[in-house]
């Protein structure tokens, strides 16, 4: 829900959150670009100043589709002492963690080293952002846990970063984005899955990213809203690729989290996969079970932006299929499409499901 446009009349306080919650999608930001420099070799300071990040998109600064708000973030989330939204721990504590009783907050840093064409730079930035997460966030507030950012296009380098961090309880998952040079089921990404499974870490796939492919199979659309909605289609295709290329057959203990891409589409995608697989399975003999089974067993979903049908039973019908044990509550703080914890789950949910949705599933999955 949009914090700028939402009127008081639409709010309901019937289900205010009194108990602790997990927030499985928080975006920490750097106050200034140079905040990363202590964690980066000198050559990269000069390189960045001279050439920038050389991403898989055309803009040197800012996104190709201008966001609806500065930094796609809430206007009330600017820290009083300056810097962009999400860049101050003390303000995040005050605005998000304390009032909403967040017991576990999972950090998903964006605008890092992913989606960059210079692979050495990408690897250096990934390592730096991981060190920065410990230094600035997780070591300062034990409620916060990091995500291991990796050089997504170079499997062996990414695997080495994962193995380096394995066992470090500052981190609870490996972070990928949905859009890469190839669909996420491709073999080039398998070293990432192998290392994550070995370390017992879930792989979170957050909507977004750049890999050079247009965000539709018909090229580039015109508007920001098309990019926003389109993340869901990218995520569907990435998940189809993961299942059909055999990732979950090869790494059966791998747990994956679909972050910020919705979950309402999960049943229809699974039904389509099952139906088509029944006819075309001779092409993919490595997919041994109906695709829906891999999805039900190995996939978790963060909730924000929660699908919002007119009639709430429609949403509950979808959740019944996905499983109340597979949803992880998330706000997406400090982004503009923040889901307010007390208003997300409308009345009519059992206490056990409510607890699982807000906290239990996340604690179990992330072992916290």
């Amino acid at each position, binding site marked *: 829900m949009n914090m700028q446009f939402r009127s008081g009349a639409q709010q309901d306080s019937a289900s205010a959150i009194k108990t602790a919650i997990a927030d499985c999608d928080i975006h920490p930001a750097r106050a200034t670009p140079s905040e990363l420099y202590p964690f980066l070799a000198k050559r990269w300071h000069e390189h960045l100043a001279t050439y920038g990040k050389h991403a898989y998109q055309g803009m040197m600064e800012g996104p190709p589709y201008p966001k609806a708000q500065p930094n796609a973030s809430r206007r009330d989330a600017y820290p009083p002492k300056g810097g962009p939204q999400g860049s101050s721990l003390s303000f995040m504590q005050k605005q998000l963690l304390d009032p909403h009783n967040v017991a576990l907050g999972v950090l998903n840093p964006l605008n890092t080293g992913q989606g960059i064409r210079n692979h050495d730079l990408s690897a250096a930035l990934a390592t730096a952002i991981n060190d920065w997460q410990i230094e600035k966030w997780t070591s300062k507030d034990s409620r916060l846990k990091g995500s291991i950012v990796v050089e997504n296009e170079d499997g062996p380098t990414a695997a080495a970063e994962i193995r380096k961090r394995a066992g470090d309880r500052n981190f609870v998952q490996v972070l990928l984005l949905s859009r890469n040079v*190839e669909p996420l089921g491709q073999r080039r990404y398998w070293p990432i899955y192998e290392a994550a499974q070995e370390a017992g870490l879930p792989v979170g796939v957050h909507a977004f990213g750049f890999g050079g492919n247009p965000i539709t199979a018909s*090229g580039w659309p015109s508007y920001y809203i098309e990019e926003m909605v389109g993340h869901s289609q990218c995520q569907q295709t990435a998940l189809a690729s993961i299942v059909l290329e055999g990732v979950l057959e090869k790494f059966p203990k791998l747990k994956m989290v679909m972050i910020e891409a919705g979950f*309402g589409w999960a049943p229809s995608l699974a039904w389509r996969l099952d139906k088509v697989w029944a006819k075309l399975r001779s092409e993919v003999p490595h997919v041994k079970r109906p695709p829906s089974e891999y999805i039900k067993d190995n996939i978790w979903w963060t909730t924000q932006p929660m699908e919002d049908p007119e009639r709430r039973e429609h949403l509950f*019908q*979808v959740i019944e299929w996905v499983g109340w044990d597979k949803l992880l509550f998330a706000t997406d703080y400090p982004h503009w499409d923040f889901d307010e914890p007390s208003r997300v789950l409308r009345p009519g949910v059992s206490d056990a499901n409510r607890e699982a949705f807000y906290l239990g599933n996340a604690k179990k999955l992330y072992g916290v």
Partner: protein
Amino acid sequence: MTAPIAGGVDCDLHPAVPHLTSLLPYMNDYWRDQVTTRGMTDLLSQSYPTNSPITGRADWRPAKGKPGESVDDLVKQALDPFKTAFGILNPLYGVQLVFSEDMADAFCRALNDWLVKEWLDKDARLRGSIVIPVQSVEKSVVEIERCAKDKRFVQVLMLVSGDMPLGKRHYWPIYATCERLGLPVGVHAGSNYHNPPTSVGWGSYHIEDYVAQAQAFQTQMTSLIVEGVFAKHPNLKMVMLESGFTWLPSYLWRLHKFWRGVRMETPWVDRPPAEIVRSNIRFSLQPVDAPSEPETLNRLFDQLQSDELLLFSTDYPHWQFDGESALPEGLSAGLVHKIMIDNPHATYARLTDSVAKETTP
């Protein structure tokens, strides 16, 4: 199985062009010479490999040749068993895949003329879709106007994945022409492969391309809605063909939520997206991507909140169902009538035009 009723309209039938050489009689000397001199091969699209199980149902495959090649087979296997009153032919020959707009234009003209002679003239129940050289809007408009004189053409056909998103203003003259002539735009599964076949790149397998059609339809619906195609052309109808429809409710929930959030970006979208879909967009019935138990499907129909969206289709000769169970379990008699008769006639205004003409002295 839910029994079909007589007099229905099958909105998605696929006649196969036996070979590129079959179109030679419909090309001018220059293009006949180009095809032969350059040794051009058959225009088979990766979207439907001839021998893939999905391209032709086993019991609908001829002893030799491509599934869907014979009018007699189509009549016997797709029209007669369902007592179909009208069948709309959507040729999926790879004429849109070429990169030259001149070549595409020549091939589309040949394909449309071939359809008239080899199909429409052979059975009075058959209706056609006009295949257009989409790369050139100017040539597309000319071809639509040329073919539309024959009232048996009831629709214009485009592929769901092409050079640009379908809502782009570039295409609007095509939509203006269609609206003026009462021709719905049918958007069929398939790509011209001028872009990667999915929004995250190239997958390894045919099955990935096929599954990704559903996502391609979703992004095209977003494009058509937010660019304002239906605000500009309120009487234009679009039909999503072989798109699946079980993704529609959750897709609209998401689009609606973001539209509420950022509608200042596209202020001409002055109605909720679901309302635009209900007034202007329709979907062919097959494939039904849902489990076979009726409760699930009826829940989906409830989520759609409309009984006017679906149009009967067998998707012949593609393999979407077995036997004659084109209608999924558990549909009410009223809904069957809507899907098979009322909704197609409300969508395709020209369906009965040529019939009326024949009976007028």
